[in-house]
């Protein structure tokens, strides 16, 4: 099993896949920062003063992390950033579900009509698993 997980080609494919997802997610939010800021507001967790700052910076962290992952640069560091963000997104979506909030998640900017729900959590858990795998087995 460990041998399979250490397979160079498997790792590169997963890195590429994760990188691509982050690039798309980041770019969609960069195009429409105001829409993304409103999505963040929907979660009703963050203080108003922090909303726009998150909307301006987070998409670029996703975009640059995604690009670095695709090019295999600082793989472990980027995979850790990915994992932390995914864990945070899972907690955010879960908290929205438990508070009975119902809105589009804003995960891929405002073009994403997926609502917060268990399907979204499942998707994020999948991405979290892959990013933890890259963090553990990826090149230094």
């Amino acid at each position, binding site marked *: 099993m*460990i041998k399979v*997980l250490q397979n160079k080609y498997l790792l590169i494919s997963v890195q590429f896949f994760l990188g691509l997802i982050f690039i798309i997610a980041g770019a969609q939010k*960069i*195009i*429409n*920062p*105001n829409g993304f*800021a*409103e999505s963040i*507001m*929907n979660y*009703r967790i963050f203080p*108003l*003063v922090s*909303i*726009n*700052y998150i*909307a*301006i*910076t*987070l*998409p*670029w*962290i996703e*975009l*640059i*992390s995604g690009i*670095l992952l695709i090019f295999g640069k*600082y793989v*472990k*560091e*980027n995979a*850790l*950033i990915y994992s932390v963000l995914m864990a945070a997104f899972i907690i955010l979506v879960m908290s929205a579900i438990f508070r009975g*909030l*119902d*809105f*589009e998640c804003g995960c891929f900017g*405002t073009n994403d*009509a997926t*609502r917060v729900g268990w399907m979204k959590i499942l998707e994020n858990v999948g991405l979290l698993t892959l990013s933890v795998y890259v*963090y*553990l*087995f990826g090149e*230094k």
Partner: protein
Amino acid sequence: MFSTKINIKVLFSIVIISSVIGLIFNSFSSERIPLIRDKEEILFTNITDLNPDSTSTEIRALDTKTVKELFDQEKAVFIDARDKWEFGEGHISGALNVAEYKYEEDKSKLENIAKDRLIIIYCGGDDCDLSKRVYKKMQSDGFKNTFVYLDGFSIWLENNLPIQKVEE
């Protein structure tokens, strides 16, 4: 085997450099947003203050009592900003479904409505923002006599006011 060792300096550099690029990009972007968000002002309006040419930047809102009166007098067009599934399960009688997430597609339903017509937009309840977003979009499309029914469908339903369902 695997290792969990990372270079913490590299990790912070990626986060900080990305954030700085974001801040610089935002200050030159045409979609620029201010670093600190302004508080959204919600202005409750009485039935006597329904002014068709309001240019106020606040969101003008109506309470259930006023909305009910306007509904009874058949004075307003109701817009449901939720998705088609929620709309199908039940909506204010006679409301049009202009879903926030596909506003550009749904706004063709507004073509026959005069720009100065009294329009009341609502969504699920006071914890949803869909109606406020559709309100802003409609305002920028030239509909000046628009209001948000902030209590939304949940309170309408609680008051046993007329609803409709979409038959399959």
